[in-house]
């Protein structure tokens, strides 16, 4: 029974840890499917996290915080668009620049506004997203097997967690069942075909980037307002890059993206769980090794186990009408 409880706990933290990855991964999916590489997911999450926590602590409202996180993140997405769509700049350079601006400006503004060494003030209960308890969760807790699964795994997460998982089928539906999705996929494969069909390539790509900004904003808000009770400098800690890896791993497909992010989240959860616990045969493993495990496995998985990942064909290339 202990083992069962341990498994439920690991899976529960798997869900919590994979949510920011999943949101960022879906964010990247929108822009990359539209042919805009976005290495700036990390930076957009970071500004989202900062803006969310700052606004929540100033206005004492979690929802205002979320709104601000989305707003600022979308603004950064539009900067990326302005550089790489309107001015046809290099998308990688623009994305890296956004990451640097995000890392620097959040610390600087945080210190200037709150004088806590780049942190935002700890958020109170009304300023964070609390857990949503599903009906009957407490009553069923005692039921063996199903009880813990229902009350721990399914119930008791923040609203943003459910939002992230609802975003998966929603994204699939948008991409493959709507006119907007058809055009978005087309512009990532052959923008000239979209242009000659009488659709604006730039406007379409901007709209894709706005979707990206909304999702990275939510991801950032999740980090600073759910997982943590406030903003801490560099709190994204490479999650934007792991999300990009998951996106490639998922071959730019929404449902695959969910499983990829859950896998990375699971590895992360496992490494936390196994810290300091002696393993059979191997014995006690240093903490650092366990922390490195998800990244090592990422490299191995990306190198050998996903087969051929074909990115959208027009990805990374600014659209210029042929002369």
């Amino acid at each position, binding site marked *: 029974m202990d083992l069962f409880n341990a498994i439920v706990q690991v899976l529960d933290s798997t869900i919590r840890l994979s949510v920011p990855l999943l949101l960022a991964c879906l964010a990247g999916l929108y822009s990359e499917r539209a042919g805009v590489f976005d290495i700036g997911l990390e930076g957009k999450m970071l500004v989202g996290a900062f803006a969310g926590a700052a606004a929540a602590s100033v206005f004492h409202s979690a929802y205002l915080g979320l709104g601000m996180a989305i707003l600022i993140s979308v603004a950064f997405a539009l900067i990326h668009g302005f550089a790489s769509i309107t001015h046809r700049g290099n998308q990688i350079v623009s994305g890296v620049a956004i990451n640097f601006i995000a890392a620097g400006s959040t610390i600087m503004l945080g210190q200037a506004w709150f004088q806590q060494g780049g942190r935002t003030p700890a958020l109170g209960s009304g300023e964070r997203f609390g857990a949503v308890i599903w009906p009957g969760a407490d009553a069923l807790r005692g039921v063996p097997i199903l009880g813990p699964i229902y009350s721990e795994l399914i119930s008791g997460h923040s609203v943003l967690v459910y939002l992230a998982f609802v975003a998966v089928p929603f994204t699939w539906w948008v991409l*493959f*069942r*709507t*006119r*907007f*999705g*058809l*055009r978005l*996929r*087309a512009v990532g*494969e*052959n923008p*000239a*075909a*979209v*242009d*000659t*069909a*009488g*659709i604006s390539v730039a406007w379409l790509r901007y709209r894709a980037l706005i979707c990206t900004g909304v999702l990275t904003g939510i991801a950032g808000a999740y980090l600073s307002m759910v997982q943590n009770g406030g903003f801490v400098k560099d709190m994204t800690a490479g999650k934007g890059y792991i999300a990009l890896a998951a996106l490639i791993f998922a071959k730019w497909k929404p449902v695959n993206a969910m499983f990829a992010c859950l896998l990375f989240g699971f590895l992360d959860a496992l490494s936390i769980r196994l810290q300091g616990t002696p393993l059979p045969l191997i014995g006690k493993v240093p903490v650092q090794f366990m922390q490195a495990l998800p990244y090592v496995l990422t490299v191995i998985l990306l190198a050998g186990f996903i087969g051929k990942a074909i990115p959208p*064909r027009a990805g990374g290339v600014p659209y210029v*009408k042929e*002369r």
Partner: protein
Amino acid sequence: MAQAAIELIGINKSFGAVRANRDINLEIVRGTIHGIVGENGAGKSTLMSILYGFYQADSGEIHVGGQPASIKSPNDAIALGIGMVHQHFMLVDNFTVLENVILGAESDALLKKSIAKARSELERLEREYGLEVDPDAIIEELPVGLQQRVEILKALYRGAEILILDEPTGVLTPAEADHLFRILKQLKEQGKTVVLITHKLREIMAITDTVSVMRQGTMVATRETKKTTVGELAELMVGRRVLLRVEKGEAEAGGVKLAVKNLTVKDSRGVTVVDDISFDVRAGEIVGIAGVAGNGQSEMLEAISGIRRAVSGSVMLDGKPIDLTGAADPGELRDRGLAHVPEDRHHVGLVLAFEENENSILGYHDHPRYLRGPFLNVDAIRDDARDRIAKYDIRPADCRLKTANFSGGNQQKIVLAREMEQDPGVLIVGQPTRGVDVGAIEFIHKRLIAMRDQGKAVLVVSVELDEIRSLSDRILVMFAGRIVGERGPEATEGELGLLMAGVEHQEAAQ
């Protein structure tokens, strides 16, 4: 009096210093097939892109159906009933036919309804025009001929009354081209207006009612097709009389330079594509390999030039074997006097992002002449490049210009100049004039014959029968990976055509 579907009045368009269209006037009559011919870079595609709203004219007026029209985007053109089939297809390769057809013209925000509507509409278009294509097929799995059909369907689905086709047969096999022409005639019978842009005069004569000729951005003449000749059109295109057949003396063939024996090549799927081929090329002769594209010529060329593995057989260059394992060092073969002008100059012959002078020494860049210690001798490279630009009349005459900015014909001349100027003993040329305009064809043919007269062994592979007949001292015909016949230059087109179609071969097998 027939009504004008389109009238262009005083159209001007410049790209920087280049005047692509100068003061163009053109009237296209409703319900006809109107051809527009001209050399590469004469401004045909620019003019049609203006009509389709892809570019804006600097000045001038467009009238559609008698009314002045303002065409600022492809959307405006589509609304006026103008559809375009681009030279490079504007299709999303991993979408289905239906998805491509509705893209940008979806009837509903949800795809299900749009696709259902398009499906029934496509069935109607198929019936009316004989444009059969599986609506659920993925584009990249379709042959080019069918992909082009999808482009036509796209235009018709948007209600096009006027259909512009830009170089539609460049990528088609002769059979596919014939089918396309039947479709175009059908469209004309149904009252549609067709504008056909091409540089192939034979097509103009075969299918158009009226033909307009463009030269260097201006419209030089409009003729009724029945009342003109290929010779007159060719002359109008280049502005002087061209030799459609290059004059040459008798070949004085010497010793065997290149000997191919029992060469067999398989493709990546293990299918035999070159089947037990043997032939010689002697010094001072041009051997031409004729055949419909895709009968093993490309693979044979690659095997002989050492870049594709051969399963069996041998190739001797000056009596010494060439490594046929696919691992041959092309540099070593060059040193041994084998020069190769590849079929696909964009992917194999040139680095398009390089400057002209860099491409003009590619592969010969470690020649001591181009080196100064471990560094490139840039001055020597550019001097040579400038010499060749003058000698081969490469335009524009700027060795610092990016190679991508040269026209197809001039790019081909860059490759030819590079290979010929190394004074090789054996020259192998694939498709010497693919995508090259009339003036440059004549020039290239003369250079090839000059090589022959200097005693070089020249092997030419081309899908253009005229070219093979005009150049070759001996003609070998390839069909299904085999050489099915050898003829002299006096062979008739019909005779060679039967061989190329494999007719005689099949009869012999029975």
